[in-house]
């Protein structure tokens, strides 16, 4: 009995230490997700009678189709570019180990510090023929006016390149790190069997780091889907009207704060949450990425979430 009481007391202290995190998790993770769902059926200007038609109304909004095309176009460039380029660069860095390559890795990480508002400023300059640090390249392509570049149909490419430069360096380093986890014995065995650098990369290294590639893909996909800052600043601060409600998050923001339609904005947020959530569940339950947590994530949990 005394032992039981002792354990109860211990767990009380443990709960107390866990409580600050749990409160944050509940109030800023779980509760807003519930509130977002509850907000959807409330009556608004767009959904006068209220109800779950909010989903239908937001999908039929005249800005939804263009936003979908923009985001799909952006993701169609950004996600594959990230995955193939990052993996390619990491594999190239891993071919031959030289001390001077640490300087290359340091250089690759520098653009990661240029994101959001700073990225908009820097890319405005890079693509401005009179100011650009790559004037020669722009001249080569006969670009003499910034208006030749800053056009609505070019935004998917410009934003994909901006996002790519902000994210690629970090991931090159991380995937390079994942390649370092491959045991020397495996690489030795491949060499003894006569595998070339290319064969080793494709047949040995890539399969061994596949879980990290899935992890990266899910995070890159989920992050890309939520693009907001860059088109919002371009639209409001530099080229007025060039990217109005360009992305889903901008549309969601405009629905909420320009039209007061929080139900529609929440419906859009929940729609966007679904692919991110599925991606998260894929990484957690279908890869052994979080192998440290394996002991605590059992088959039972997998069945609960229906995967």
């Amino acid at each position: 009995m005394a032992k039981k009481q002792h354990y109860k007391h211990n767990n009380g202290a443990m709960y107390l230490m866990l409580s600050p995190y749990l409160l944050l998790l509940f109030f800023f993770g779980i509760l807003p997700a519930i509130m977002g769902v509850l907000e959807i059926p409330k009556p608004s200007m767009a959904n006068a009678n209220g109800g779950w038609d909010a989903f239908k109304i937001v999908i039929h909004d005249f800005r939804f189709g263009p936003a979908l095309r923009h985001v799909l176009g952006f993701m169609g460039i950004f996600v594959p570019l990230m995955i193939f380029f990052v993996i390619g660069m990491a594999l190239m860095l891993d071919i031959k180990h030289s001390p001077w390559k640490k300087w290359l890795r340091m250089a690759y990480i520098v653009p990661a510090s240029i994101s959001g508002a700073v990225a908009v400023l820097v890319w405005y300059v890079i693509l401005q023929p009179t100011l650009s640090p790559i004037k020669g390249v722009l001249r080569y392509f006969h670009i003499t006016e910034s208006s030749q570049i800053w056009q609505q149909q070019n935004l998917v490419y410009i934003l994909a390149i901006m996002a790519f430069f902000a994210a690629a360096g970090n991931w090159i380093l991380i995937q390079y790190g994942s390649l370092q986890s491959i045991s020397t014995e495996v690489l030795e065995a491949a060499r003894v069997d006569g595998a070339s650098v290319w064969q080793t990369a494709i047949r040995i290294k890539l399969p061994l780091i596949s879980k990290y590639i899935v992890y990266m893909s899910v995070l890159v996909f989920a992050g890309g889907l939520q693009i907001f800052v860059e088109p919002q600043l371009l639209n409001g601060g530099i080229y007025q009207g060039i990217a109005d409600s360009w992305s889903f998050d901008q549309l969601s923001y405009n629905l909420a704060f320009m039209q007061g339609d929080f139900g529609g904005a929440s419906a859009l947020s929940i729609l966007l949450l679904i692919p991110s959530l599925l991606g998260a569940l894929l990484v957690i339950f279908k890869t052994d990425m979080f192998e440290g947590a394996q002991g605590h994530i059992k088959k039972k949990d997998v069945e609960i979430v229906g995967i």
Partner: protein
Amino acid sequence: MSTTQTDPKRKSLKKVGRVPASKMRHQHPFSTFLVTTWLVFFAILSLIPMIWLVLAPSKNDKELSYRSPYAFGSFKGYLNAWKHLKYFDNGVIGTWLFNSIWYTASIVIIATITAALAGFVISASNIRFKRTFLISTLIMMLVPPVALVIPLFVEMDKVHLVDNPWSVILISSLYPFGAFLAYIYYTTSIPAELYESARLDGCNDFKLFSKIALPLSTPLISLLAFFAFIGNWANYFMPYVMLPSSEHYTLPLGLGFLFLSTPAINPGVGATSVPIYKPEIALAGALIAVPIMIMFLVSQKRLIRGMLAGSIKE
């Protein structure tokens, strides 16, 4: 950080001057040259935007157009740009800088403490719903925080915290990635037997954390603080939604405000008496980007170890 498992053979090879398998393989010199050239080319390309950003405030607006983008102006240029920025809205740039520092510092402190405690409890206790906490944490970690920004605004509005810095600080202090890192760290670096023997010696759970886990947590704390800093210093979306008043802006929000309200890069704004041009805007941008760059450069290993938590060998 001891969350990583070291392959003993690799380590011993390192000591004696490791010769990687790939190095011993026959490689075509031309393809090696091509690969090296490409790697160097991309490194140079990666540095160009930052070089421009750091050098731009050393020149004045006219010099930016006619001098080389890679030319250095003068140190006085930085001082002039800062003076001009201070003319804007009675020196609000100082407020933005101060806000950025205190919001980020508060987030780093709260997030690091709560995440470290959560990771410790999940790893060292047998509390109920442990798996549920862990799975919720992993899901929250992989879902981008901006996905919930609209419902979070509705929630903050209900408790009258909109336009209050604590809305951003509290929301951003939820640090599921940090809690997961802490959990992995404590699980792999502190054996369960250590906790058991400390308990037998009469150590309660608070002391278990403060006397056993905390003294062994220096690498973890620096890792948690690093990720909390880089995730929040340049954050734009959450403060943009939660803090409409310019006196509550952070530097990134302030930079966006400068785009909008000065003719520096916005042709839609007519001439103003405030001397805010491209060098001034670039200085504001450098104040945001350079601290993150420094953190990245000095913490490369932390980035890799953190993102591949627990599953990487060196």
